[in-house]
């Protein structure tokens, strides 16, 4: 990822597109799409900035999820799309699906290696990818959950 404002804007744009695309797949109404796209853009902007200043992927994902969830808790509610759905859709572009596929393929490949040494060599990247997936998804879920758990009880009538 390039350390430049252009990269940040580009990632925010692609995050918005991914969130809006997934929103349609999850049957969000068209009028609710701008909120989802804005959430995705904010999440990717924060994550890109955090990566640029030296955060790890997991820490940057946590920061982005936390910021989005906190912002969503304080913007006025809408009956077009729920707060929970906006948070989740904003974070979906940060789910490490590519790493997950690599991790599983890597684990598949361990058993077909011709020697123990080759299996050991294949094991390390597979484990690294698996742990990265687990920690990143955990960071996203925790980052989204904390603001919701802190502030939700004060708004019993909100979506």
């Amino acid at each position, binding site marked *: 990822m390039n350390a430049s404002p252009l990269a940040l804007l580009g990632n925010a744009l692609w995050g918005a*597109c991914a969130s*809006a695309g997934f929103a349609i797949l999850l049957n969000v109404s068209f009028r609710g799409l701008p909120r989802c796209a804005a959430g995705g853009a904010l999440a*990717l902007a924060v994550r890109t900035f955090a990566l640029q200043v030296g955060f790890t992927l997991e820490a940057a994902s946590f920061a982005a999820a936390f910021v989005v969830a906190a912002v969503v808790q304080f913007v006025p509610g809408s009956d077009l799309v729920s707060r929970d759905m906006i948070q989740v859709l904003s974070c979906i572009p940060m789910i490490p699906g590519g790493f997950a596929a690599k991790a599983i393929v890597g684990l598949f490949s361990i058993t077909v290696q011709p020697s123990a040494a080759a299996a050991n060599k294949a094991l390390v990247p597979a484990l690294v990818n698996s742990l990265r997936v687990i920690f990143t998804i955990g960071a996203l879920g925790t980052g989204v959950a904390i603001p919701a758990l802190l502030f939700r009880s004060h708004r019993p009538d909100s979506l």
Partner: protein
Amino acid sequence: MNPGFPHERKPGRSPQRQALTAIAAVALQFGKLLMESGASARQVEEIVADVSTGLGAKASELRVGYASLAVTVNRDDQTLTFMRKIGPPGVNQALYQHLWRSAARIRKGECSVAQASEEVNRVANSCSPHSAIVTSIAAGIACAAFGRLLDVDWSAIGPIFGASLLSQLVRRQLAHWRINAFLAVTIVAFIGSLLAGTGARWMGIQTVARDMVVSVLLLVPGVPAFNAQFDMLEGRPTLGSARAAVVAATLIFMTAGVWLAGGVLGVRP
């Protein structure tokens, strides 16, 4: 054959019990549809409680499982518990929003039990998903955007978009035919990654393996993955674990499809 609820088969019960039974039936119908629309357990519990009390129950308790719901409602010294199965889990935000609005009206006491029953059935039948072409284009755009986020080459965006678009069409058709969800994931992943890989190779793109993976990211179960964590964090580890297991199984079946396509193309994803 669905045997129906007890109050439908035993009309000789007392009026109070029949009324309570009808309340439980409507509340469970709300809960079932909410679970099938991708709501978290907390949301289901809140809305079912709103519906039950709005229709006249003094108190209600809900037990949310992965494949079933059980509700206990109480009124006039009468208490009863109902259980019902839940259909295949999915995500349908429009349905959730309609159910939430209906529950809000019921909570204010604006509906009788009969009206609420009619309302929930009407909502269930009226919330159809976006059209196939719209969802397919959306899937193409989402995966192409994912591709740019993962630094795939600009020239690979076309094959990724096309493969994802066609994959979503196939996915929808398989769902229409009620093919097993995990099998469908493997089939869609195979077709999507095969198309993306073939297209990328034909265009001379170097990142064929990455393009194959990106084109099937529409299958990653994002909402269930988050719901699993929310359920665990909110004190429902059994339901959260069940959802997490389904997410893991979905990822494995998705990877199997990509892996098979890689075998056909001679590419290691």
